[in-house]
């Protein structure tokens, strides 16, 4: 089934589009450098692609099937972990190629630091961009056990390079809280303020450029909605909170690339992989 998934593309559907005809490209990126809090994120893309064949892809809200609009799926890249920078550069180069072809990439992670090379490629292509980082933890630290790019530093790294809005975090420690004051231009809307839906005004008020990379760490969902290894902290978003947020992000900005990351499959609970696949469909439908 897994091979079939890759062979046929996201959704395993007959309408899978050849790359040269596609406007949107799904890129499974099993990035797992072992620096995060969620064990098994490298297995996420495979599980989501496998589950995608069982997802009803017609979007009733939009009135069409996003997969009818030209979606290609790439093979997952073979990443090298010789040093921490190498896989990130590999992802950036891959992303640059897709963006250079005038297509919108949607990455399925993988560790959520994928946002950094993805945003870098988007910035190289489109110039002035912002980043909307939907995440369970903001990542304001400067270093995490000596490492520069981890989920605990990603908010800071992104903020140093582009105007970044972190949306939905519900847990961080005292060090991160103190670091918040030292991150230039740090913008954050915590989970509590997203519950029940967030409007476009709130996102636009952050003052980001018109174009943006949208990064979605699925751990932003509450463990009762998305039980998975490492997603333990209470107080996360509900499903409709997240899809409303995704809709608002696509409405507020011209999203030029997107990642759905931080997912580790729960063996014995196929619903979690299906949920992430549904989220990918949602993003594909909203993509310009």
């Amino acid at each position, binding site marked *: 089934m897994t091979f079939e998934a890759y062979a046929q593309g996201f959704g395993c559907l007959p309408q899978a589009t050849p790359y040269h005809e596609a406007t949107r490209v799904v890129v499974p990126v099993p990035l797992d450098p072992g620096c995060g809090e969620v064990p098994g994120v490298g297995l996420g893309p495979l599980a989501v692609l496998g589950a995608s064949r069982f997802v009803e892809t017609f979007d009733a809200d939009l009135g069409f099937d996003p997969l009818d609009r030209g979606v290609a799926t790439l093979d997952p890249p073979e990443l090298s972990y010789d040093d921490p920078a190498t896989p990130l550069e590999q992802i950036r180069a891959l992303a640059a190629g897709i963006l250079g072809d005038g297509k919108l990439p949607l990455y399925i992670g993988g560790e959520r630091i994928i946002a950094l090379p993805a945003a870098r490629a988007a910035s190289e292509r489109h110039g002035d961009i912002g980043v909307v980082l939907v995440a369970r933890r903001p990542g304001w630290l400067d270093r995490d056990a000596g490492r520069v790019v981890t989920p605990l530093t990603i908010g800071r790294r992104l903020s140093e390079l582009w105007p970044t809005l972190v949306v939905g975090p519900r*847990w961080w*420690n*005292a060090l991160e809280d103190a670091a918040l004051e030292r991150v230039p231009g740090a913008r954050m809307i915590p989970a*509590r303020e997203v*519950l029940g839906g967030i409007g476009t005004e709130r996102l636009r008020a952050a003052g980001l450029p018109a174009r943006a990379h949208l990064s979605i760490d699925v751990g932003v969902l509450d*463990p009762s909605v998305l039980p998975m290894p490492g997603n*333990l*902290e*209470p*107080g996360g978003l509900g499903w409709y909170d997240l899809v409303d947020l995704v809709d608002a992000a696509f409405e507020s900005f011209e999203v030029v690339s997107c990642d759905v990351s931080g997912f580790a499959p729960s063996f014995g609970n196929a619903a979690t992989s299906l949920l992430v696949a549904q989220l990918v469909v949602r993003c594909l439908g909203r993509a310009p």
Partner: protein
Amino acid sequence: MSVERPTDGWRPVLLVAPFEQTSSFMSGSAEGPEAVAEELRRVELFDPDVRQGFGRGEHLETFHVPVASRSLSDVLRDLEQLAGRSMSEGRFVLMLGGEHTVTLGPLRAAIARWGSVGVVQLDAHGDLRDSYEGRKTSHACAMRRALDLGVSLLGLGIRSTCQEEVDLAAWSPRIVHRTPRQLRDASCKLGSALDHLPECVYLTVDMDVFDPAVAPGVGTPEAGGLDWHQVTSLVDEVAMRRRIVAADVIELAPRVERERTVRLAARVAVRALLRSRDSASRPTSARIADVAR
């Protein structure tokens, strides 16, 4: 008795009371306290909603209460003595249970220390039966026995009661209950529900107040419970309007979805501690002014 408001050197004491004798549905509440105490040693005691925590130097002093092969009355006596001694030293007592009957130990100590004490009970069940399965000290009777001590009671999240409990709550001016639906309709604001409680309150959080989707690892799960934000906003309001003099987090039976239910209980314990510290530091007049604002 006058209410003291010392906060300098506010130091909590953790009582670990894994007592379980009368569980009636799923057993395992004896495993909860040690699991949560261990989690509190492991996780960072910082709550971003409050933007406060406990620094590295402020370890939680922990007492493990022996319960093996001991009667409930012996365990309650130990808990009362330990809690009473800690309270007399100006310490704040947070207990991790165990079945709900253990609440009676530190509650007795709190009454001895502060005189008039109300109970704020977050729970799926009324626990107001006079007896259950032939016992007057069943977990299903814990709040009835608390009433025997003369306290007034506010039950929040109560959604599973028998006729006897409903009748008692309707008849007694000392009992106010709010169901999850009532709380949701009121945006989790307590309004006049706190009015019958004295200034000092004992906070008891039965983990089954949460919806089973949020806290699967409890002994008697009940559908239609509260979520994290609802529970913590209730705790926040109680602490703003009353002084929490002691608290417990009980009835965790972490045999299902252990990791996240234990983490949830640990986070509840931290929030209860932080808000109790706040409530101790704020004079009554300021608290009333806060509410008025």
